[in-house]
């Protein structure tokens, strides 16, 4: 049957009249129904980046250590020395997770893992960066946030644990702005030898094209275009667009593909993610400067009677497209039989640059591959700047009870211990986790390469809401600071841009500001962007989410003895604050939680100060002078020093004295000024340590001593005292308490 192409049908495919005109120009004729579907997914925001491409161009993607650039392939690759490289990337599954949190999050993990082994790398660890609405309280909203939260975490655990890749870190914020539109960003890193880098290009005219992995079903139809629209009541009707993952198949596919790549018979390989068979065929052809011809009748199918349209647009999980060196077909058979996985030769590489899809020999689709993949329209979106945000005036903030304030801040789910989450993730499989979740950055020992890697994800959405450019800069700075505190030298970045509807000029202004902030900071910290992902249309009835340009950063630690943790270790160690005492309270957790004011100008970043502080901390660590290092972030010095006391296996007290410091104590304790690190130093090292800092001309101060069972903070005006055991209880079990409330 022939479906007639009506303006209505074009609209329902999310294509504008102009875009349709462009399609006709490319084809020199009207597209048929199946071709229309193909264009609609390839030209959706998710696959074509039509609204963000011009912005992404601003990100620095090159550097001496960059082996594969962002955008070239499924994920970038960075040199870590001795012939080893790492491939890493972050991807979002926000919309699927909003509609079906367990499967949405699970398939998000499956997808990013495939992106990494598609590069020829063996995935070695995962991180997850999550955002939800508030989970405390008895309101229906809080209940549904709890459900989303626990299902998302269970879904990530379901896939990651089963595949046997440890989830060793991440971050979680709970905030109004993510109500009903949670963010689920998953990061995966893989390891490979330089010569093992695999390409997603259809090379070698005449080479056979293989389909491997799960059979194609009707699941996830047009998820790509689904992820490119506002989340509305109707999208509940889009539910069939959510696909079900099979981590068991995912694990077999991973092992089989790595074995096949090692056999040297692979000319090109591409995962089937968004837009499935469509995206993988036309992208491999366009990367290879070739054409690809496949026959859908040969595609393994789960359900009878699927139409060409359905097969091409299906987003069934655990599938790959592999271009095999002619004559090596037997190897594919041997390996995929061994792993009991379906596979089929579905076509061949051609020389005419056309993506040609047959069905039982009859031509269904005939589109110039390169144009389909790269000639999506590119839009310059209109922007309108937010009005400038005022500076907070401390006089307007009534001093709060500081004893209670610290307890409440530590119990705030955004700040509280995340053990309820990471204990559900297998974070010790692969026997390489040296610093498990719970310190500034996770540290993983890659045995095959004999390398220590540190990784973290960071982004404060509220900072970005109140000043997107500054917020993005700070995300990069904090990520780098977290790595440095663990003893690592920052290497490179992957980012995940989570924003609202790009057709709202205010949203697009946030995106542009944030990308320019990211770009600038990545240059200053010398950490090129290896890739990432854009998720737009993150809206709920109250409008767009806080802009959230999540930064994932990876670093290397050259020597085991440099590995540093955040918590205090021994009594009578001396506590130093590296960096200023700070004063900026705007957008702080103290104002948000204790004073109920989510407003004012967020902290500002000084590159020179930040780079100076990081250089000193790293130098001190490398000279073996540091027993612990923890940066000040949400909740400022007060929360950070408390965490130093309670986040280790053995809890220990500390006494801190700010002497005659003029500012109000709440401002001293809870300001969130950047570029600050709390370190502890053995008494015998004090001399050496102070010499290094003085030489660096970085502000630093001796603020106290480790020991006892209380945390004591005093100025010459007042003295505060907390029982460390109480601080621990407030902080450690807070999320557990929230989740066990009905």
């Amino acid at each position, binding site marked *: 049957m022939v479906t007639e192409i009506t303006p209505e049908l074009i609209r329902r495919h999310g294509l504008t009249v102009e875009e349709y005109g462009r399609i006709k120009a490319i084809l020199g004729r009207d597209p048929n129904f199946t071709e229309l579907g193909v264009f609609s997914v390839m030209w959706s925001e998710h696959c074509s980046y039509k609204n963000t491409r011009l912005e992404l161009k601003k990100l620095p993607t090159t550097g001496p250590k960059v082996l594969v650039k962002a955008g070239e392939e499924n994920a970038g690759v960075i040199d870590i020395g001795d012939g080893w490289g790492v491939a890493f990337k972050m991807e979002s599954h926000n919309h699927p997770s909003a509609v079906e949190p367990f499967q949405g999050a699970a398939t998000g993990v499956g997808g990013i893992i495939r992106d990494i082994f598609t590069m020829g790398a063996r995935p070695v660890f995962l991180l997850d960066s999550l955002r939800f609405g508030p989970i405390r309280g008895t309101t229906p909203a809080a209940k549904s946030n709890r459900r989303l939260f626990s299902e998302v975490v269970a879904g990530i655990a379901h896939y990651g*644990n*089963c595949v046997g890749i440890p989830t060793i870190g991440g971050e979680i914020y709970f905030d109004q702005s993510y109500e009903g539109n949670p963010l689920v960003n998953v990061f995966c890193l893989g390891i490979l030898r330089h010569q093992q880098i695999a390409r997603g290009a259809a090379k070698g005219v005449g080479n056979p094209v293989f389909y491997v992995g799960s059979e194609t079903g009707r699941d996830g139809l047009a998820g790509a275009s689904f992820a490119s629209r506002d989340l509305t009541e109707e999208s509940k009707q889009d539910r069939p667009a959510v696909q079900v993952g099979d981590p068991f198949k995912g694990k077999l596919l991973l092992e089989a593909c790595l074995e096949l790549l090692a056999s040297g018979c692979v000319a090109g390989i591409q995962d089937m993610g968004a837009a499935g068979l469509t995206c993988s065929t036309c992208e491999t052809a366009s990367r290879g400067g070739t054409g690809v011809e496949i026959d859908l009748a040969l595609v393994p199918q789960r359900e009878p009677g699927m139409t060409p349209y359905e097969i091409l647009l299906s987003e069934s999980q655990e599938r790959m497209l592999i271009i095999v060196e002619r004559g090596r077909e037997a190897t594919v058979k041997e390996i995929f039989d061994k792993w009991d996985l379906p596979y089929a030769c579905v076509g061949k590489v051609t020389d005419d640059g056309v993506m040609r899809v047959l069905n039982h020999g009859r031509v269904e689709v005939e589109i110039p591959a390169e144009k389909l993949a790269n000639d999506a329209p590119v839009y310059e979106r209109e922007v309108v700047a937010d009005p400038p945000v005022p500076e907070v005036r401390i006089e307007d903030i009534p001093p709060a009870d500081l004893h209670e304030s610290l307890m409440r801040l530590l119990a705030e789910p955004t700040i509280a211990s995340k053990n309820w989450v990471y204990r559900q993730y297998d974070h010790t*499989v692969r*026997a390489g986790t040296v610093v498990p979740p719970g310190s500034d950055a996770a540290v993983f020992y890659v045995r095959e390469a004999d390398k220590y890697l540190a990784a973290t994800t960071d982004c404060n959405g509220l900072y970005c809401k109140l000043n997107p450019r500054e917020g993005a800069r700070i995300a990069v700075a904090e990520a780098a600071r977290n790595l440095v505190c663990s003893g690592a030298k920052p290497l490179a970045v992957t980012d995940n841009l989570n924003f609202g509807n790009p057709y709202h000029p205010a949203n697009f202004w946030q995106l542009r500001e944030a990308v320019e902030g990211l770009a600038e900071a990545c240059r200053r910290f010398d950490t090129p962007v290896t890739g990432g992902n854009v998720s737009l249309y993150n809206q709920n009835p109250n409008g767009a989410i806080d802009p959230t340009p999540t930064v994932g950063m990876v670093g290397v630690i050259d020597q085991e003895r440099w590995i540093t943790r955040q918590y205090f270790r021994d009594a009578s160690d001396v506590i130093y604050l590296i960096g200023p005492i700070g004063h900026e309270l705007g957008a702080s957790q103290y104002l948000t939680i204790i004073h109920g004011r989510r407003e004012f100008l967020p902290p500002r970043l000084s590159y020179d100060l930040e780079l100076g502080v990081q250089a000193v901390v790293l130098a001190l660590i490398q000279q073996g002078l540091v027993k612990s290092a923890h940066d000040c972030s949400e909740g400022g010095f007060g929360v950070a020093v408390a965490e130093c006391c309670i986040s280790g296996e053995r809890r220990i007290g500390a006494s801190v004295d700010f002497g005659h410091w003029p500012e109000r104590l709440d401002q001293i304790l809870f300001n969130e000024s950047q570029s600050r690190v709390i370190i502890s130093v053995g008494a015998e090292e004090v001399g050496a340590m102070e010499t290094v800092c003085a030489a660096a001309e970085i502000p630093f101060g001796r603020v106290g001593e480790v020991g006892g069972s209380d945390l004591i903070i005093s100025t010459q005006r007042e003295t505060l005292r907390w029982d460390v055991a109480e601080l621990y209880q407030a902080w450690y079990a807070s999320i557990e308490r929230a989740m066990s409330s009905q």
Partner: protein
Amino acid sequence: MKIAVVQFPGSNCDQDCLRALTDGIHVQAEYLWHKETSVSGFQAVVLPGGFSYGDYLRCGAIARFSPIMRAVVRAANEGMPVIGICNGFQILCEAGLLPGALIRNQSLRFVCQPVWLRVETEETPFTAKLKGQSVLRMPVAHGEGCFFTDPTTLGSLESKRQVVFRYADALGKVTPESNPNGSMHGIAGICNEARNVVGMMPHPDRAWDRKLGSEDGKLLFGSLVEALEPVIFR
């Protein structure tokens, strides 16, 4: 001497187990594919952790029928030392080589954390080297690790001293708080009557390197090697 590490589809601690043996205690070890039908050439068998066959239906239920398991059961009945770790323990129970079953954690959540283990018997090839009552440190990581069996079986497990490990605190005291999954009697590992087959939920394969925070796993595998030594001279 050569030790087999069985690979089922969905095993994901196979590499960790192999490394624990080859890099950890420097003995010869090789993978044994689930489609193989014999264990000849090996002096002991390790069933590693993971999600064999996706753990669909029940953990270990499908793996138990894979070709290699017939050979493992035969060898075990002839006295070959066999250890099942985590999913391997579940498979041994499903295969009837060990009594009882491992059911969903009481918390209904997957649990990954370090635990302390009290060693309850030295009379197995895997614990011979361990001083009685000494506590070991290693991680657990499972969703179905709650050991369950009927009262009679439980009684005979205790009276025949077939309980090999119990969850305990750092001082070796068995407390409810130190039990991560609700196992009966805090059971973390057991052996068969002949004492050559041991199953345990915790992961010695993740505790054989100072970097990982504990080397206690080496003691287990080390015991095995000593127990096997005579085999070579035979």
